[in-house]
């Protein structure tokens, strides 16, 4: 019988700890498929962040280095400078990348480190159970903004926009995984970013809008609808930078 669907070879055959319906599982699978299709598993080093994806080393079959909260881009810099022929992927969430790690994020981008950042933006701190993130929307309720985020707490930070102002990045894109179609599109973006890295072109940044249904206190379906109807308005999808032209 023909196999029509299977777990990517780059992903371990173990149950994920992620909540049912969470985007992390989908994005892991997409990255795994891209690693398979580009045949780079034996050449890839992943940086696992602090956040819900802290255990990513249990799920990917590639070499993996943990990083302290916010420091993944600096660890990835050290790895890539030491291993210029390897593929280095830094997988990070919004608290990690856009709050405590903002300096590391911006400066790695500004130096044009030849790494790929996969940025899961779910507008909340998931691992620590639902505090306000730098990407939390105005009005969004979290455990540290119980009446909704107001402007005295700062505004949601648009990382793609911010990174696009820099000279060095070669590929900056925002995508989502709220449907099969959007997930497939996201996969194309991840694959393009990894391909550009493989070709030594430069810094690539893939932001993915993803739900945190547990901490948003919604069903997975409703949380995906909320991304489509509301989150996407604050964080519009699209290719922000593609110095080498969109792949047809």
């Amino acid at each position, binding site marked *: 019988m023909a196999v029509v669907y299977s777990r990517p070879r780059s992903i371990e055959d173990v149950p994920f700890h992620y909540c049912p319906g969470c985007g992390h599982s989908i994005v892991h699978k997409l990255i795994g498929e891209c690693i398979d299709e580009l045949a780079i598993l034996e050449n890839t080093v992943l940086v696992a962040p602090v956040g819900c994806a802290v255990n990513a080393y249990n799920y990917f079959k590639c*070499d993996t*280095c943990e990083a*302290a909260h916010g420091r993944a881009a600096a660890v990835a810099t050290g790895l890539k400078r030491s291993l210029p022929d390897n593929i280095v992927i830094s997988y990070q969430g919004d608290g990690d990348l856009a709050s405590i790690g903002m300096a590391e994020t911006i400066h790695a981008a500004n130096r044009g480190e030849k790494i790929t950042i996969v940025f899961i933006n779910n507008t909340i701190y998931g691992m620590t159970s639902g505090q306000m993130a730098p990407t939390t929307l105005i009005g969004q309720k979290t455990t540290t903004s119980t009446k909704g985020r107001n402007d005295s707490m700062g505004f949601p930070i648009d990382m793609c926009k911010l990174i696009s102002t820099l000279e060095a990045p070669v590929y900056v894109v925002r995508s989502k995984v709220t449907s099969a179609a959007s997930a497939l599109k996201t996969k194309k973006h991840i694959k393009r970013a990894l391909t550009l890295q493989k070709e030594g072109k430069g810094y690539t940044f893939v932001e993915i809008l993803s739900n945190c249904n547990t901490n948003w206190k919604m069903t997975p379906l409703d949380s995906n609808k909320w991304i489509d109807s509301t989150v996407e308005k604050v964080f519009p999808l699209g290719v922000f930078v593609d110095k080498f032209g969109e792949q047809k």
Partner: protein
Amino acid sequence: MKGNEAMAESAIIAGCRYYFGYPITPQNDVPEYMSRRMPAVDGVFLQAESEVAAINMVIGASAAGKRVMTSSSSPGISLKQEGISYLAGMNLPAVVANITRAGPGLGDVTTAQSDYFQATRGGGHGDYRTPTFMPGNVQELADMTVAAFDLADAYRTPVMIIADATIGQMMEPITLPKPTGKVFEKPWALTGAKGRAKNIVRSLWLYPDPGLPQNNEQLQKKYAQIEREYRMYEEYKTSDADYLFVAYGTTARIVREVIGMLRSEGIKAGSFRPKMGWPYPYEELRACAKGKKFVLTVEMSYGQMVDDVRIGMNGDIPVHFYGKAGGVILTTKDIITAFKGYI
């Protein structure tokens, strides 16, 4: 050669090809020297956006199996403590040099020895130790830099060098060290899982995974081995001495002068100089101090290493302390006055 540059060149001699740093006085000669030298030896110099980023780049390069170093001075070393704790927990080798200045806070850019606790007691969070070299002159700074890389690789641990700003900034004629030629296999390094199972470099294990207690016990075993292997100290005119000084770094040089002055007055004094702050040569110090009337510990601090002297003496004989900190170099006159107060 200037202390800071001698250290940088010795790192290159030791095979270090990766340096990540951030400017801070009084160690700026190190990143400046590395920025010139690293490209010449096909190495990597990178000026990071902060000390925090620099130490995390060190983690990345070390995880990739490379010999890597960073340097800073006191306030910058405080920022690096997060990364040093991770290096220890992740079992990653690296050399971290602290050309110490005065604190607390921004303090002063001038010399001090007030980071002894930070270096020898862990500095960051968690149960770990950092082997800590304490050179007394530029030659030792150079030699210890080479030794630090071997220790780091042999035990997969971060190693610190603490040299007061005087040693970093001072010029002395030296003979550059030779490479030791020791080779350390690093099968744990992250290089891509080709033809082997994947490698993971981590410091996190969540309950009920037994990984964390296992890793911590393994660290303690490693530290016990290092304690057995490393006992570095120097004695000066101690055999006939009635009084014993204990001092390290630049202070130990001043104390030598004091000993000469006291001896010319007929007072028999000697000195014991620890060359490492951890492991501390407790037993050797105790043996050396046996039969002396008292021990006077002298530091450019308000009393840090003196705690180790008291542990070593364990109440056998009186331990006194004299020290000042805040960018002042102790004078022979002040030390002698303090000493005579205890006779």
